[in-house]
């Protein structure tokens, strides 16, 4: 086997030497044979003749010997490649068009593949037996709706550990952004609060030191030990080995570093790798004293690993049984709460990739669609290139017919054509890598956030690229090859390069319609997403976004009394007001799309079961709240300076809440109570406009507003949270505000700030991503289709010169000719629009859930796309049409 390879390689690399050796060898044989006859007395010329006859045809034998060496296919491949390369170099314009077309198509796919692979396929680094590892999701009916949830209380995790038998590993993991380090050096980073059992899911060794152990991860509070990520170890400690034993501030706690995780270890599948790992019980104990004794704080995820002999269904059944027991412990009072059976409580083992399970985010669903779109773009690009190659094959008919007549086999010819498209595809693939490298980074930053943006050139993407390139070569090569096979040698040689009449190729027409239709589909998609995005952007939220900065203080290393915290909150507002360019500031309790306080449904005398109406969110602000946030008062008044701690307690409700609680009545003047019965009634003094703080779509949310002074008196402590309105762009003020407020902080406490826009961005990301990608790819497809249309019509005009000459000679006007050619372009466009619209109409019902207050079958979008396509068709046909118009009949008829 090995000697075979060496022999072939030598044969290939030393082709000249091998040929000479063969010549020498055969010559030696003939000479010896001749001598044999000469010695027997035959005259030399006759002896030579006999020797040659006994030997057989020398050329034939040489050929056979070459074949025996097993390199002829490589020889002919090299020959084909050289031939193809010469052909491509001879037409640089054609080559550039084809290579760039394929490069765009392949590059778009490679870039999207990087994202989709991460979302759906790639196993987390070091994970043992990915197929047996699952996330746990629960489903149950609550208030008549099915809830799907994967955030658990620690006690639930302990229940599952105790009550299941199907798993050889169960881990709990939570993530928080916490300040790491002290003072000026402190930075907010991702911290993984994980159970010690998580490390058993991975086949990895610590880079340094050790991972923490189950003995250090125990209730009520684990040990304060931390494991650094490899990246954090390098960026923060320069990879120094003496980090072990050093202490590290993480959030409100101080940990001892005991180990460093290996490079690439992410720990939590799907997510951005945390900078630091700490025992989950240690972190949880800093937030809640009784977190392991009740089911209130649902904040962590669970991973399980099935025992090899347990099926997926078996695992789900085991989990469901355990969940039912756990459920009955959470809700022992079956008169007030449904039983597990009634709630149809179910716990499932789901794929490790979130995007494949019930927790698939809108972002990942959009990403899947965009991957599909990228494939369509590649198909359009292929159709285009196939079309151009076909055009070339047609104009090369005589050459091909000549080669067939000279005895080249058809198989050899097809091989040569495929080689040509392989070369083109390879060049396109190379261009694609460059484009993906450049565009992929932008994409991933947009989609996965700055931390997810790495290089594109990983092995899996390269394998994908290779497969895509080969597929492209095959797809684009097939049409020209079939054409060559069908060719009629004698006919082609007899006829001129063009025949008297123009024959339209059915394949080419089909390819062109295919491109046009797909462009329409993509453009409709682009239109729908763009409109969704603009709907999202322009939807009234009930507050201003662009001029708002949100700041919050995190106490650390100090114990603040209630009075001290209230006083610090007031000082924060006062300090914020001293920063130049600030228009207003207010204390706040809930922040839309970030955090919220709920104290249950309001209590109104004579009214029952108000909790059925939904969730009520409490907001408490300074008198300047409405002026700062931009929420309008629709009736009555807002919170004012008069609503001090000692004055009668008042409340402002939003419009939806007013209508829900007092339909057909004015809410102003009504009374309600929040919290237990010892608290006083609140008088409704005003109605505010509706706001959105949880979801951008769906039913209106219930919000009510208290004065922060009265909130402090009734409920205790103010939040160290401030909303600030600036004069200008919020992002220009975040840092100045943060620095100013930091000066007020006691101990190691720290302030962090965000613009409201930042808090909102993740909610709009899916639509922004969809809109950007559909527009980019739709535009690309349109350009490709335009190029395709142009080349087909231009080619048709060139082929029909003779016929057009006859028509003009017979009296056709220039206008007639022009109309004829333009009409041809428009006919293509109309057919494309018709087919594409049908497909888009049909596909609409799958896209609609991804859109935002937007019907998938929007006539405006369809009409706009049709107009664009018609305009592009005219633009593509106009140049060939003008050329056709200028055909000189005498020239046309004389030539050929």
């Amino acid at each position: 086997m090995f000697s075979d390879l060496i022999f072939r390689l030598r044969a290939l690399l030393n082709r000249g030497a091998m040929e000479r050796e063969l010549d020498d060898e055969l010559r030696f044989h003939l000479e010896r044979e001749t001598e044999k006859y000469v010695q027997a007395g035959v005259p030399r010329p006759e002896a030579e003749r006999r020797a040659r006859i006994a030997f057989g045809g020398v050329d034939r034998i040489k050929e056979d010997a070459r074949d025996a060496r097993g390199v002829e296919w490589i020889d002919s491949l090299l020959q084909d490649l050289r031939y193809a390369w010469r052909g491509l170099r001879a037409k640089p314009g054609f080559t550039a068009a084809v290579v760039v077309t394929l490069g765009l198509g392949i590059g778009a796919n490679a870039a999207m593949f990087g994202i989709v692979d991460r979302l759906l396929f790639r196993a987390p680094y070091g994970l043992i037996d990915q197929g047996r590892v699952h996330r746990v999701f629960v489903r149950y009916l609550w208030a008549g709706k099915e809830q799907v949830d994967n955030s658990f209380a620690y006690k639930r995790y302990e229940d599952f550990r105790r009550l299941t038998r199907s798993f050889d590993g169960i881990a709990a993991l939570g993530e928080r952004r916490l300040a790491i380090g002290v003072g000026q050096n402190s930075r907010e980073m991702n911290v993984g609060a994980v159970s010690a059992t998580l490390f058993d899911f991975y086949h990895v060794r610590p880079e340094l030191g050790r991972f923490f152990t189950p003995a250090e991860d125990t209730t009520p509070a684990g040990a304060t030990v931390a494991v650094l990520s490899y990246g954090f170890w390098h960026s923060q400690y320069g990879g120094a080995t003496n980090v072990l034993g050093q202490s590290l501030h993480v959030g409100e706690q101080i940990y001892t570093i005991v180990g460093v995780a290996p490079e690439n270890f992410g720990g939590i599948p799907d997510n951005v790798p945390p900078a630091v790992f700490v025992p989950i019980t240690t972190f949880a104990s800093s937030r809640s004293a009784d977190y392991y004794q009740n089911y209130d704080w649902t904040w962590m995820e669970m991973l399980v690993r099935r025992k090899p002999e347990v099926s997926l269904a078996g695992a789900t059944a085991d989990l469901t049984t355990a969940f039912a027991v756990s459920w009955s412990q959470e809700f022992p009072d079956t008169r007030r709460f449904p039983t597990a059976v009634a709630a149809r409580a179910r716990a499932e083992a789901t794929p490790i990739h979130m995007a494949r399970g019930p927790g698939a985010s809108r972002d990942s669903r959009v990403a899947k669609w965009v991957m599909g779109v990228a494939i369509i773009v590649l198909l359009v690009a292929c159709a285009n290139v196939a079309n151009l190659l076909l055009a070339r094959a047609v104009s090369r008919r005589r050459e091909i017919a000549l080669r067939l007549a000279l005895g080249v086999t058809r198989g050899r010819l097809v091989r040569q054509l495929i080689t040509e498209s392989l070369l083109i595809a390879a060049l396109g693939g190379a261009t694609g890598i460059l484009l993906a490298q450049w565009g992929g980074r932008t994409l991933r930053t947009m989609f996965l956030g700055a931390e997810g943006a790495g290089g594109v050139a990983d092995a899996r993407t390269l394998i994908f690229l290779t497969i895509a390139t080969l597929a492209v070569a095959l797809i684009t090569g097939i049409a020209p090859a079939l054409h060559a096979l069908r060719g009629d040698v004698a006919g082609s040689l007899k006829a001129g390069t063009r025949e008297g009449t123009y024959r339209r190729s059915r394949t080419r027409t089909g390819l062109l319609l295919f491109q046009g239709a797909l462009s329409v589909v993509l453009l409709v998609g682009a239109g729908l997403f763009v409109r969704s995005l603009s709907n999202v952007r322009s939807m009234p939220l009930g507050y201003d976004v662009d001029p708002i900065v949100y700041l919050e203080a995190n106490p650390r290393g100090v114990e603040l009394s209630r009075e001290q915290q209230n006083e610090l909150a007031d000082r924060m507002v006062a300090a914020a007001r001293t920063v130049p360019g600030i228009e207003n500031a207010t204390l706040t309790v809930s922040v839309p799309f970030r955090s919220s306080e709920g104290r249950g449904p309001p209590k109104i005398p004579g009214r029952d079961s108000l909790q059925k109406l939904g969730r009520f969110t409490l907001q408490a602000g300074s008198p300047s709240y409405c002026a700062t946030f931009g929420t309008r008062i629709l009736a009555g008044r807002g919170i004012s300076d008069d609503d001090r701690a000692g004055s009668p307690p008042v409340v402002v409700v939003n419009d939806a809440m007013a209508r829900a609680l007092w339909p057909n009545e004015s809410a102003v003047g009504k009374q309600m109570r929040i919290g237990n019965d010892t608290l006083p009634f609140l008088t409704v003094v005003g109605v505010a406009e509706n706001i959105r703080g949880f979801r951008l779509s769906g039913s209106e949310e219930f919000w009510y507003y208290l004065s922060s002074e009265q909130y402090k008196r009734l409920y205790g402590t103010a939040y160290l949270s401030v909303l600030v309105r600036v004069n200008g762009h919020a992002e220009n003020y975040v840092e100045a505000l943060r620095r100013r407020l930091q000066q007020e902080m006691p101990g190691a406490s720290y302030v962090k700030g965000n613009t409201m826009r930042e808090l909102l961005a993740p909610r709009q990301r899916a639509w922004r991503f969809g809109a950007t990608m559909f527009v980019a790819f739709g535009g690309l497809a349109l350009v490709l289709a335009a190029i395709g249309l142009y080349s087909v019509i231009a080619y048709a005009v060139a082929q029909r010169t003779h016929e057009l000459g006859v028509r003009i000679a017979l009296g056709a006007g220039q206008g007639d000719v022009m109309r004829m050619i333009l009409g041809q372009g428009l006919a293509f466009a109309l057919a494309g629009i018709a087919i594409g619209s049908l497909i888009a109409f049909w596909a609409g019902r799958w896209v609609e859930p991804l859109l935002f207050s937007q019907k998938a079958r929007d006539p405006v979008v369809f009409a706009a796309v049709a107009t664009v396509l018609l305009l592009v068709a005219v633009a593509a046909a106009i140049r060939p049409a003008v050329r056709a118009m200028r055909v000189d009949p005498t020239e046309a008829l004389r030539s050929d």
Partner: protein
Amino acid sequence: MSDRLDLPQGTLDLLILKSLSLGAQHGWAISERIQQVSRATLQIPQGSLYPALHRLERRGWISAEWGASDNNRRAKYYELTRAGRRQLDAETEAWERLTAAVALVLRMA
């Protein structure tokens, strides 16, 4: 001509391996030896020897080296390799079994 036999498919390889089993030879000598030993019964176009030699070399059953011939000219000498010797044994045995079986059938039927 009728007393001469065309070679059955694949037997040329066996004959070459057998001729080389006595020592290294160049192509012409192999051809001569096969002619002589078979008393000119086997009809082999001399040229067809060479593609076969190259094929056997590629398979690693024989190796080739340039050397001086008896009349002091440069000639390419072929030699059995160890793998080639094994191959010769295997093919010889297979051939004998085949011919024996064919002979048996011809006698019985």
